[in-house]
């Protein structure tokens, strides 16, 4: 049976929104830690950067609220008016899931429905401990969903969800690195100069890569290594290289099964070849910000190509 175009679009966006909710949770978790644990409390700057990573700095300022942890956390987690809040992401994910219930297994549907039930009526995220508990349970719920999706039939429904997630994840990692890198590089500093240990640890925490870093690099924390890990290491599931690779794999699985192949495949393969040849040191020399900006733009173009290729309506 051929999949409806509307179903394909909803599955893809389901994957994107669940991934986005998960990333928001990780970002909040890492920022709470940064704010609370670092020797030099980062305070407002930490929260400003969290907003900036999720493209919501202006939206937050428009609310007229003071930039405190409590306000920003509530904005990023439970604010119904912030389209990027965790609650709204889960809401959108569930709407998409509901529209394509027949393409999901009961387990996948109940996983997303349960996540939504847990958070949609919450009004106040509470203090730091409560916030950490909450993001922990968001992560557990999204993991549960991913697990349920992996146990679905290995067909286009699963691959489209995973494709949406991979595109979203690539975007998230690139933005995280871009924003943090800007903040971390005080005026007049060059890459490789003095750096804020806690800030770099925050990046690693956000992508669950603290331990991975220790495994892969023996020489201790260095900004060049963190950049290398997050861009070029295929072993790290959230690195750009891993996301780019996953997109190619998923598109070719979809092509084999549906016979649909085209511009999206070509763009994805070209991007993979480029990232395989790119050395981290070259990126740093040429300008990390420029590199990440181009990556984010290309990722968005690939997203549109996917929508055309699968006739999303």
């Amino acid at each position: 049976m051929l999949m409806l175009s509307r179903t394909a679009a909803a599955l893809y966006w389901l994957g994107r929104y669940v991934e986005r909710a998960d990333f928001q949770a990780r970002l909040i978790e890492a920022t709470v830690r940064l704010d609370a644990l670092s020797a030099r409390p980062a305070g407002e700057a930490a929260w400003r950067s969290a907003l900036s990573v999720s493209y919501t700095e202006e939206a937050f300022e428009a609310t007229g609220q003071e930039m405190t942890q409590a306000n920003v956390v509530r904005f990023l987690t439970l604010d119904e008016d912030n389209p990027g809040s965790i609650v709204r992401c889960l809401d959108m994910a569930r709407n998409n899931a509901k529209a394509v219930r027949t393409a999901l297994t009961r387990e996948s549907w109940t996983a997303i429905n349960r996540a939504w039930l847990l958070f949609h009526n919450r009004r106040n995220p509470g203090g730091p401990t409560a916030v950490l508990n909450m993001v922990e349970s968001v992560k557990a719920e999204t993991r549960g969903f991913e697990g349920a999706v992996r146990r679905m039939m290995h067909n286009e429904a699963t691959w489209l969800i995973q494709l949406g997630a991979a595109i979203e994840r690539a975007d998230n990692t690139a933005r995280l690195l871009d924003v943090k890198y800007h903040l971390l590089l005080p005026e007049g500093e060059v890459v490789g100069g003095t750096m804020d240990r806690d800030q770099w640890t925050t990046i690693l925490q956000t992508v669950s890569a603290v331990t991975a870093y220790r495994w892969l690099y023996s020489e201790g924390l260095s900004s060049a290594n963190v950049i290398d890990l997050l861009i070029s290491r295929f072993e790290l599931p959230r690195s750009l290289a891993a996301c780019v690779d996953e997109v190619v794999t998923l598109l070719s699985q979809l092509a084999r099964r549906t016979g649909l192949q085209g511009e999206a495949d070509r763009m994805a393969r070209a991007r993979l070849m480029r990232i395989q040849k790119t050395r981290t040191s070259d990126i740093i020399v040429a300008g990390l910000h420029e590199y990440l900006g181009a990556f984010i733009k290309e990722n968005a173009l690939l997203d549109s190509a996917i929508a055309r290729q699968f006739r999303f309506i």
Partner: protein
Amino acid sequence: MAAAKAFDEIWGHGGPDAPRAEFAALAEWIASTPPEELARRQQSAEATFRQLGITFAVYGESEAAERIIPFDIVPRVFLPGEWKRLSEGLVQRVDAINAFLEDIYSGDQRIVKEGIIPPELIYLNEQFRPEVNGIRPPHGIWAHICGIDLVRTGPDDFFVLEDNARTPSGVSYMLENREAMIRLCPELFREFRVAAVDSYSDLLLETMRSVTPGPGKSRPVCVVLTPGHFNSAYYEHSFLADSMGIELVEAADLVVDDDIVWMQTIAGRVQVDVIYRRIDDDFLDPLTFRPDSLLGVPGLISAYRAGNVAIINAPGNGIADDKAIYSYMPEIVRFYSGGEAKLPNVETYRCREPDALQYTLDNLDQLVVKLVDGSGGYGMLVGPTATKEMIEAFRAALIAEPHRYIAQPTLALSTVPTMSEKGVAPRHVDFRPFVLTGSHGVQVVPGGLTRVALREGSLVVNSSQGGGTKDSFVLMEDVPQGQSQGDGGMQQTQVGS
């Protein structure tokens, strides 16, 4: 009022200590299972329903409009003999409904010409659809899926309260309630031989395939058409599509081109042969019905008229389940089957007739008054429990537009033991079995949807008015050991041509 002397289907007239002989074991189960345990199982079932999202939306409630229908853990049980008589009556009635629709829309209107039904009741009825007049649906079947609402007043006294020949809902509750009961009360299934209901989806798919238009396609494309996921019965739409393994489509997924219906897939267009639509006629095709509808598929009726697609149930069926026509059902059954209706109607006063109107006005506090085109328990007066103001409001409405109303006596509806705040107590119920008609014949699935009025004494079972549901067991005849279990109460007959 009625509650005190109502017949209880398990306890009879004797109360918990003197149940009907056939139900001694079930009464014992009710008495010996602690109420806390029953409540715990019931909560567990409801938690599952919520997690699965088996919810419905209440129209007019803006806030958080997703609710679950309360589930009651004590089952309702039909004996094999009771079920056999019921299904015979159901098959006869649904056969008559199909024959009636055929006669009205694509036949000679014999029933009108022979003076059985006044012509204005059909041709001036809003439910009569001139837009589909003259179209004969594929294989001549109109009402593929019927939900016949029944009430009961005694061991052998069943009455049809209402026919649903358009898009009857509720079958997902029949199936999900059974799932919950098997999980929560396995001991009951060891004790009783309960006919399985889970073949419903297969039978429905068979029914859909059997009415594929044109010469035998080996793999007809069947779809369920839903208004979308904000509709109150969306769960059921997705459940049915899912359990049949067919696509759940919205109008936006379909296009009609040169009288062929196509669905838009990732690989382009695919022709659709059979549509089980869960959209009312009004919203089916803006070119034919309401032009302001955004839900519909432009050109669908034209494709249907060209014989290129089967629509389940056929457009125009409202004329068969309209409450004004309902009162003629005994005559309709007699006219087409040649025999008396095995399932009687509830006595009905047609307020359009002056004598009936006078009787209704004189006895408003004793009667149930209904709008002929109302549903869901809206626009209804239950005389014995109504306030003076409500009665006077209905009196004025009846005098102004008598033709819009029918009246029926308040029946002493049967009760079934049900969980309440004060332990297990009798509560009034009704019953909706589902009857499928394909080109192979008519089938009644051994089960159905039992709705229960959870408030003490209440007769209103609609979910939008606080009603709940129960599982409905149909017991199978005892078979000697070693013999196959068969399919229990399934009835099958050939459709008359």
